[in-house]
């Protein structure tokens, strides 16, 4: 079965330059905005220059190999330099290079244009998810990989956008200049959307800028391109470019949600309700390290099941979730999760895996998290 597939692929590899559709699959994307298209054009120019030089050099080599193989009675020549010729090709190289440098420089200058955008979005890389904050609208959310563990482990089938799908895509309006301010919270990540020709490193302590201007509504996908730890391959980027009115609806929806959240923290909570939300939050945010059964992967990722802190030290656990643990992979969730979610996930960990039997069994309600935040201010 592999053999058949392999032969098929091999044929495709050698025929692909001939058929145009296949060629598109294996070339750089032309992109969906002016600068991406210009970079694509530049790429094709230098690509063909290199192909021509390569073909000439390799062709000449083949000629030499055939023409000058050793023959009876033919003596090799014995010249060992030719300064004029050497000077000629050195100058020739320089000319070709200048020819490449000129379009490269103009494209570079356009790509580096750094004006303010109509919309400014702060992008923060976290291990291993992206956070998007609409600066003007004070709306912020996290974007996580959607592909299931089962699909990754070959238990469930893989869909078309395997590893390139997220729970909440970044939404931007078309025909607006969107500026990205890019930074990171822990290690260096890199935010890359090939269709925009934007690849910008997200570096802790720095804010880099990039921008795009999309005129086609659509969904554009990319990935993190700087090794950022274990799950580097699992933090994709999805950008949805929509019409202006859809964009306004999206922002309004996010603001409503925020108001709702604020209300939720005031409500009276049932343990079961918190436990259920908490379980969901746990499966989405915590299992990568602490595992589904709470056993962790000691010593790097400690177990929560049977942990003294989780069972009997509510205050400390709140603190860990809010502040993270210095020098460990455990980050602060204060920004990533809502008060309700933090309270719920703590409640969940204190009740699950027999922890309620071993510990004090108290629950944490959203108000406590809000108080913690307010006290810190």
């Amino acid at each position, binding site marked *: 079965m592999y053999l058949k597939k392999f032969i098929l692929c091999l044929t495709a590899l050698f025929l692909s330059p001939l058929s145009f559709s296949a060629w598109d699959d294996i070339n750089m994307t032309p992109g969906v905005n002016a600068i991406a298209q210009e970079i694509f054009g530049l790429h094709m120019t230098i690509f063909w220059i290199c192909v021509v030089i390569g073909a000439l050099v390799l062709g000449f080599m083949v000629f030499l190999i055939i023409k000058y193989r050793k023959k009876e009675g033919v003596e090799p020549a014995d010249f060992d*330099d030719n300064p004029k010729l050497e000077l000629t090709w050195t100058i020739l190289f320089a000319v070709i290079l200048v020819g490449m440098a000129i379009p490269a420089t103009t494209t570079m200058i356009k790509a580096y244009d750094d004006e303010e955008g109509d919309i400014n979005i702060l992008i923060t890389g976290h291990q291993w998810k992206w956070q998007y904050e609409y600066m003007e609208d004070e709306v912020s959310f996290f974007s996580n990989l959607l592909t299931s563990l089962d699909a990754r*482990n070959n238990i469930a089938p893989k869909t078309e956008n395997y590893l390139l799908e997220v729970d909440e895509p970044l939404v931007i309006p078309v025909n607006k200049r969107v500026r990205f301010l890019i930074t990171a919270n822990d290690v260096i990540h*890199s935010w890359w959307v090939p269709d925009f020709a934007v690849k910008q490193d997200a*570096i802790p302590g720095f804010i880099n800028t990039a921008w795009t201007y999309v005129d086609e509504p659509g969904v554009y996908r990319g990935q993190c391109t700087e090794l950022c730890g274990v799950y580097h391959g699992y933090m994709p980027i999805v950008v949805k470019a929509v019409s202006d009115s859809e964009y306004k609806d999206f922002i309004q929806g996010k603001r409503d949600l925020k108001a709702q959240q604020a209300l939720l923290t005031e409500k009276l909570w049932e343990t079961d309700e918190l436990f259920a939300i908490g379980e969901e939050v746990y499966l989405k945010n915590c299992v990568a390290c602490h595992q589904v059964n709470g056993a962790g992967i000691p010593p790097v990722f400690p177990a929560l099941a049977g942990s003294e802190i989780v069972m009997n030290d509510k205050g400390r656990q709140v603190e860990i979730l809010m502040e993270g643990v210095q020098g460990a992979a455990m980050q602060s969730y204060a920004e990533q999760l809502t008060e309700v979610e933090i309270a719920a996930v703590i409640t969940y960990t204190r009740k699950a895996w027999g922890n309620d039997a071993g510990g004090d069994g108290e629950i944490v309600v959203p108000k406590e998290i809000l108080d913690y935040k307010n006290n810190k201010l």
Partner: protein
Amino acid sequence: MSAVIEGHHDDHHHGPAKGITRWLYTTNHKDIGSLYLWFSFIMLFIGGAMAMVIRAELFEPGSQIVSPEFYNQMVTNHGLIMVFGVIMPAFVGLANWLIPMQIGAPDMALPRLNNLSFWILPAAFGVLLATFFMEGGAPNFGWTFYAPLSTEYAPPTVTYFIFAVHIMGASSIMGSINVITTILNMRAPGMTLMKMPLFVWSWLITAYLLIAVMPVLAGAVTMMLMDIHFGTSFFKAGGGGDPVLFQHIFWFFGHPEVYIMILPAFGIVSHIIETFSRKPIFGYDSMVYAIASIALLSFVVWAHHMFTVGMPIAGELFFMYSTMLIAIPTGVKVFNWLSTMFKGSLTFETPMLFAIAFVALFTIGGLSGLMLAIAPADFQYHDTYFVVAHFHYVLVPGALFSIIAAVYYWLPKWTGYMYDEFMGKTHFWLSFVSVNLTFFPMHFVGLAGMPRRIPDYAMQFADYNMIVSVGAFLFGLSQLLFLYVVLKAIFYGKKATGQVWEGAQGLEWTLDSPPAYHTFETPPNLEAGEAKG
């Protein structure tokens, strides 16, 4: 006093010591050369096994045989071992064997230092490999070990990694001091600098590069050590430090380092091509100047690895132009090799096959390098498989092929036995086909958007990854054949003559095959004749 002199005198005429002590205590350049080469050969199989794990994991989409964590450890250690454990030691081994024989010197200038610089290497790699069995696992932050992934977020074994890098650096620095001292002081009378064989020239320049940049690498890892254990904040943004500084320091070492891995190859290939073209090398002087200018330029191009970190535009343009400049001396070298073949009388023994493949495939690597140098285009290429394809083209059919070519070329001289030409050619054709099958499609998956250093990938990259993996397995297997050919030559080979190759020029070919344990105890006098070659 006289006792000392007599003792010394005795020394001169006996052969190697018996048993293991011959290798532990040896100060003989030929023994140390062999040690380096065997060490590098062993590391090739260890690093190669890691590559096989990587390619097995990437054979199909979805998790295959290892966890993402272990995958990262494989990627990191594969890179470190191939760079510091295979290519560099192999070149030092060749330098040890060849430099004294090519310049008519009895040995390296500093033989005891020579012994030390070899024997600390297995220690360094022992430490590095031991981290696989320690808590937290082996280094997993890539061979470029960018902070803060390699500092604040590293596994605890990073300290052992730092220690290992320090030892490797010390070994390289000592080795380079030895090479420079030997070349500058011990050439046979009449061998002026501009008459030195090109391999010697290439190593002289490489050794200066090493001395210049290895301390920079040592500085980088020391700063990491301080950040991790002593509370400094060189690279910690939280403490006012600068993660980008790390990359500047690393690549100030790293770019010259990539030329350290290719300049000696230039020397080797020049010798082989002139021998099998039966014609002197074309443009000897321009070859030397090209190597020297590549070496100088390599100090001012480092940030071409960092086009996406957010440099000001002036920086982007400067590093783009300076990198493009390197293409000029590189092109000169390729054209000189072709001109050497022009109107020659070519035969295609195994070393020549590898040397020709080197010129052809290195050219492809150089051209993709030129594309990467174009900063705005690099926004799309950077950190994708396109870069992986580029540096594997310059390092595998580049540096590694030159080393293999050198082994086939000089093995009869070193051992006194011929290898099996048919098996050698079989090895070549298998390697040549599989190396392209492995690395050529990588260009295209890269352009199509596959990032490097990921353990799993989106569906559209599946077909090409399968081809790459099959190519890689084939390439891996072919190198077992190489081991077989070398062992067969040593144990069952036909006797070789002193000249070995019809067209070979140079002092080493005036010696017996194998050469005596000590050679050129009285230097050959070249005042009259020519020694170039």
